[in-house]
């Protein structure tokens, strides 16, 4: 009887130990993945001088197929020589690489908008970073739920 008790305790201990190891592994994995690469890139490019505002970033709330996710944006700007959006970056924080695309705009375009299709490996945030001609930066983010990931591998 006594022996059996000892066994159960040790088994329980073993389970605790295992869960402890598992959680350390899990958390360490998160600790590696946690420094949001997309946000890091945004900070790098904007030199930490970025304002989070509500720009129009159109992504689906739920993407059934992560291989072809339509993403479009439309940033309100007069697009004149004195006031225009120079560059727009797209980032995804759950993809193997955070960079998605970089768009270069010119005043000839009359509007700051574009549409493309991107891959999303899992449910994650999509970030948009806009660089204005006066050196200002603005960003916005949007969460996309992905049913089937689309990065291969």
């Amino acid at each position, binding site marked *: 009887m006594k022996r059996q008790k000892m066994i159960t305790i040790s088994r329980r201990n073993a389970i605790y130990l295992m869960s402890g190891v598992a959680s350390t592994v899990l958390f360490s994995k998160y600790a590696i993945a946690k420094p949001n690469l997309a946000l890091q890139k945004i900070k790098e490019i904007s030199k930490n001088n970025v304002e989070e505002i509500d720009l129009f970033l159109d992504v689906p709330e739920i993407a059934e197929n992560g291989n072809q996710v339509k993403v479009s944006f439309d940033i309100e700007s007069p697009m004149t020589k004195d006031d225009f959006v120079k560059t727009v970056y797209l980032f995804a924080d759950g993809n193997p690489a955070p960079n998605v695309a970089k768009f270069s705009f010119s005043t000839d375009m009359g509007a700051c908008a574009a549409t493309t299709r991107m891959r999303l490996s899992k449910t994650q945030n999509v970030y948009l970073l806009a660089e204005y001609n006066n050196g200002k930066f603005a960003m916005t983010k949007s969460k996309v739920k992905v049913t089937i990931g689309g990065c*291969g591998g």
Partner: protein
Amino acid sequence: MSKIKPRGKVPKKASVDEIIEIKTLIRHPMHSGRMKDKNGKNIPKRIINKFLVKFNGKQVFGMDLEPSISTNPYIAFPFKAKETGTFDFEWTDDNGEKYSMSRKMSVS
């Protein structure tokens, strides 16, 4: 592999100061370097990494593409019509190849 073929849609006619939409699509596998073929071997990375649009010789729009862009990259963007001219589109492949296309537009 199917042939890489660019396609584009530009309105033939536009009025002055009208904002038109230009749509482009290029048939390209966009191998991200992470996909595997039927035998489980890695397909080497091969993507379109640059897209440039010139109007009458002047660059108006550019895009740098990363592996996160889907197969057969579709790109649509606006343009303010001011004068008659020609659009030159150019895609650059990882292997250095360039694919180009031009479209005319008349503005009245």
